[in-house]
């Protein structure tokens, strides 16, 4: 191991790259820490993470049936839409809101070892994937119940999930760095996500008059949900959303890595 003072902004790029590569090599560590997080959170509980599945299932059932009655819609039309929307919104929003805490909560490890920072972003995302795996049974159950068989749509949907995850990745890395310095950020993120939840067509279908509202045409959260939901419901991928979010992932990672290159040395001092 050889660590040197920073000669110039660009001299650090190699180390930024090495941090990323090492983090990928240390994925087993990230996943062990993620599993441990889940084990600790639910220690002593019989059902463990299945409790989120149950409360999510109840919420979906409630919204799916009541809103269908309120808005004079078929349950068959609304419930699968709501189920996929809420399950994946839960994944996206909890991944993002936990991202801000990723470095702060790993302070004890970061202050005495040479582990690269992105490992702790991977840990956060893997942890949320484990939770998602518990909730995906709701989606499977609902699709089966209403005899919806997406076929090739499953592959499209997984591609949508992958693109969404890539976006969550850079966003989390940026949030984790900024949150280490400014401790208000996680609270702000939580509040913003709450607002986004009601703004975004997650558990309601945008009416004809709303098709051009910013909440639909300029909302990356809606794009992400639709990239995952549309293929499952109708077997087709909204290609425009896929393109936009793919570009967002690329631009986001470039910008975030430039920020990372600038701040990676400082983060540990803020913890």
């Amino acid at each position, binding site marked *: 191991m050889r660590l040197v003072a920073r000669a110039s902004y660009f001299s650090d790029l190699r180390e930024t790259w090495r941090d990323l590569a090492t983090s990928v090599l240390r994925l087993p560590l990230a996943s062990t820490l993620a599993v441990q997080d889940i084990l600790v959170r639910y220690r002593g509980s019989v059902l463990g993470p299945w409790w989120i599945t149950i409360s999510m299932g109840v919420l979906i059932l409630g919204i799916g049936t009541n809103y269908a009655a309120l808005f004079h819609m078929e349950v068959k039309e609304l419930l699968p839409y709501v189920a996929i929307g809420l399950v994946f919104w839960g994944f996206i929003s909890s991944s993002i809101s936990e991202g801000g805490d990723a470095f702060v909560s790993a302070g004890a490890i970061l202050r005495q070892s*040479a582990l690269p920072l992105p490992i702790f972003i991977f840990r956060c995302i893997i942890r949320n994937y484990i939770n998602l795996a518990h909730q995906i049974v709701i989606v499977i159950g609902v699709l089966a119940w209403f005899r919806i068989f997406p076929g090739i749509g499953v592959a499209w949907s997984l591609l949508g999930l992958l693109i969404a995850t890539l976006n969550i990745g850079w966003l989390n890395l940026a949030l984790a760095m900024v949150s280490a310095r400014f401790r208000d950020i996680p609270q702000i993120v939580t509040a913003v996500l709450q607002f986004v939840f009601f703004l975004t067509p997650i558990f309601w279908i945008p009416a004809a008059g709303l098709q051009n509202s910013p909440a639909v045409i300029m909302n990356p959260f809606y794009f992400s949900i639709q990239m995952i939901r549309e293929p499952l419901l109708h077997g087709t991928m909204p290609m425009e959303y896929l393109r936009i979010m793919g570009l967002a992932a690329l631009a986001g990672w470039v910008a975030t890595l430039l920020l990372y290159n600038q701040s990676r040395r400082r983060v540990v001092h*803020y913890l």
Partner: protein
Amino acid sequence: MANISVEGLSLYFPIIGADTHSLKRYLKQVAIGGGIAQRNFASSHSTLVALHNVNLSLSPGDRLGLIGSNGSGKTTLLRCLAGAYTPDIGSVEVNGRVASLLDLSLGIDPSATGLENIRIRGLVAGLTPAAIAAKTEEIAEFSGLGPFLAMPLKSYSSGMQARLAFATATAVEAEVLLMDEWIAVGDAQFRAQANERLTSLVDKAHILVIASHDPSLIRSLCNKVVRMDHGIASEVVSIDQMDELMARPAPGTTLGWSKS
């Protein structure tokens, strides 16, 4: 072959008070701060010179004791050697597998069991799951915790936690062992065992760097010693000259706080 080479190392800490961690405070400074200089947030907090021009060269068999008053930079230097802090000036080169016993709580989760903690610490230290499985028995035996290993850590006394941490950290077959204060919480029997294990580690031509306030401990473990004062390191001297080193007046310094 393990070796440590520190050249011209300086390290600065940004000092951010609990309240300047707040975004509101930062934004307020930007909004109503007088003058352009305030807009540069690098200038809105003080900098602490934690280490100043530290030079160090250690080769196999060296057992270095770091002495110095509180806040003199001993732990910071250890953290630099562990790779947690990157230099602001100069360089740090450490070859060989490093085990750092700087903070006993590393990776330790109070509601996880002893065995789980061994696994986490092993992974953090860079072992593969297979290697950890192979070593678990040895760690369990050395720690002497027996059936307690299956229990959550919160049921342990602090001495038992220290046993587990020490057993795990030294099982990594470290070539460079970094310690911040001796783990004094173990009982006499464990201390004797730990001493033996540490001696055998160091005897395998490895390197030990330990920071301590206890001169007799340094004398019993180390063959070289460095004194830290306000982030400035003295030259490395042989352990025989420790009394002379400790008797020296602190170097007069204007270092410490600066407004960057």
